[in-house]
């Protein structure tokens, strides 16, 4: 299993010269993330946000020790970028890009799995270790070092709940956005396994939404005793209508699968405290800890 990130993790930014790549490289550096190199084909030899840029990861590795990669390259080129990072044995590979074809996501996730590498995303806000390092686009000000791990399929709702956790006087350990696409690298269960063994995490906030059955599978895993720390959850989309994609490519109720009620019921049966409103998650965590 991946080590995810901490203050010592050395990061390469793929797509560092694009507007998103530059903007977030600056914010990540401000937060304390060790960004040692950037890659943009054709821009080798330049600097971006004070970071040396290379044409390939291979070349960046000749000059730096690198642990992980974060990808901002446009969707048509993301598969190539991710395969390059996987081939270079970087782990995890965080894919921020939205709009990647599902077929490409299937390929990159399978390629990573064959090498035991973790893909975070695609279409993810990324991963943060509160107070140490962030590989992602989440606003840093809502996080504070603490003992709650967060797993979320959504972005802004994740920040919303993180800020409420901070507001009630708690804080976060490692927080991961799984991504809003139908096919993503990480599942809730992967993260629950990781949090089970993480000594810095004492409780978990699970943030889900309509579409698919990842939350139901997580509930089953918890119910069967796979995860022993307290969990509080929120599921978005009770007011959603079947057959309509609610913003995220993966957020769609198809037939009778993927409804919020099915997820909420499964989680409650597994003993998870499910909040009716996002604000209730922090209150539940306060009660559980």
């Amino acid at each position, binding site marked *: 299993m991946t080590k995810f990130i901490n203050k010592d993790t050395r990061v390469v930014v793929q797509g560092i010269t694009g507007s998103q790549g530059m903007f977030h490289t600056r914010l990540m550096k401000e937060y304390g993330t060790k960004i040692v190199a950037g890659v943009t084909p054709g821009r080798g030899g330049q600097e971006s946000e004070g970071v040396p840029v290379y044409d390939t990861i291979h070349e960046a590795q000749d000059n730096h020790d690198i642990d992980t990669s974060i990808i901002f390259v446009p969707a*048509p080129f993301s598969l190539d970028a991710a395969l390059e990072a996987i081939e270079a044995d970087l782990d995890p590979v965080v894919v921020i890009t939205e709009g990647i074809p*599902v077929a490409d996501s*299937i390929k990159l*996730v399978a390629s990573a799995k064959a090498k035991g590498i973790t893909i975070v995303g695609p279409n993810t806000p990324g991963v943060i270790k509160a107070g140490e390092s962030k590989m992602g686009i989440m*606003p840093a000000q*809502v996080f504070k070092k603490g003992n709650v791990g967060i797993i979320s399929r959504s972005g802004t709702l994740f920040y*919303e709940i993180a800020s409420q956790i901070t507001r009630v006087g708690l804080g976060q350990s490692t927080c991961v956005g799984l991504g809003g696409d139908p096919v993503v690298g990480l599942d809730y269960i992967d993260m629950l396994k990781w949090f089970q063994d993480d000594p810095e995490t004492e409780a978990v906030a699970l943030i889900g939404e309509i579409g698919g059955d990842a939350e139901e599978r997580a509930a089953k895993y918890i119910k069967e005793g796979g995860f022993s720390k307290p969990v509080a959850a929120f599921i*978005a989309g009770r007011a959603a209508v079947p057959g309509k994609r*609610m913003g995220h490519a993966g957020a769609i109720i198809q*037939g009778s699968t993927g409804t919020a009620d099915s997820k909420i019921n499964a989680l409650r049966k597994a003993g998870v405290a499910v909040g009716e409103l996002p604000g209730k998650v922090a209150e539940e965590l306060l009660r559980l800890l």
Partner: protein
Amino acid sequence: MKLLEYEAKEYFKQFGIPTPMGNMVTTPEDAAKYVESLGKPVVIKVQLPVGGRGKAGGVKFADTSEEAKEAAKQLLGMTIKDLKVEKLYVEEKVGIVNEIYLGVTIDRNRKQHVVLASSEGGMEIEEVAAKTPEKIVRFYVDPLTGLRSYHANYIASKLGYRGGMMRKFSSFVTKLYTLAVEMDAELTEINPLAEVADGFLAADARLNIDNNALFRHKELQERLLDSYQGELTEREMEARAEDLTYVELDGDIGIIGNGAGLTMATLDSVMIHGGKAANFLDLGGGATPERIGKAVKFVLRDERTKSLFVNVLGGITRCDYTAEGIVAAREELGLRKPIVVRMMGTKEEEGKAILKKNDIDTLDSMEEAAEKAVKLAGGDA
């Protein structure tokens, strides 16, 4: 993006998938002319982006060109599920020995393509799955090897085919899988797939393309907006044209948020406080004041909207931009519908100051804001 049967069949032909002879027509005269040239009995099917056309009377048979003309005339006057029939597919009638089902789709949980095949074609595959699950062959494809010929042979023999028919069905499966991958299909389905005396024919065709992959299929990209017909409401079509992520709902409280999850949670909180949302509108990340203004105008213009609830969590989206966009939109429309804003994060103070100057209230808590939006819409919160 959902293609119509005749469009899907064009691609089927390109990929060498056997299909009956057929032609798309838009007039009874052309239907008659085609049957004349074909010299065979035909089936005439309406071309609409919705299912259940058979039950709705959208399929007719004809033996002669006169019959075809008459049938086409009737079909072209029909309206099915609010859609006017404008296109017909005239296809040679084939001697079906057995109706098969074959489909390729994506299993999001397993993160693989899956091939589904069943000897029970002709009815909905969901129905077969519920009643006789043992009659469905599911084959999950390893993304690193793709579907190999021995996989396709396995599927064919599982359906009970031997010898030449086994090889023919196997080749059919391989071709459909190749099409699914190369065309970036979210789903491609043949139901029924006709087993005829000497082989197999795609009697129907469904092909849904992944919108995110349209950069690889430029010829389809141009037709994206048209393809939403039947799937999206008129208002949703307008929103698409303005590049807004919008879903129409049936309440009276307009909702704008940033990020899909937060916007969904905003709908939920309105529902919990006894209100009903008129829409879902996700600004996405990093919206400019112009984009926010456009969204606010779009929702306020909707005569059903009695109050508007804007919920923004500022990260890469800025609260001051949000405030500027709201104020400008309201000025421009000259409407005085009540607006409730909840904003937090990047440039929060600046944003709140702009709104205060313009007499628009802001609240810090999403719950309180939802309650107020419901009250202002005349609900019973």
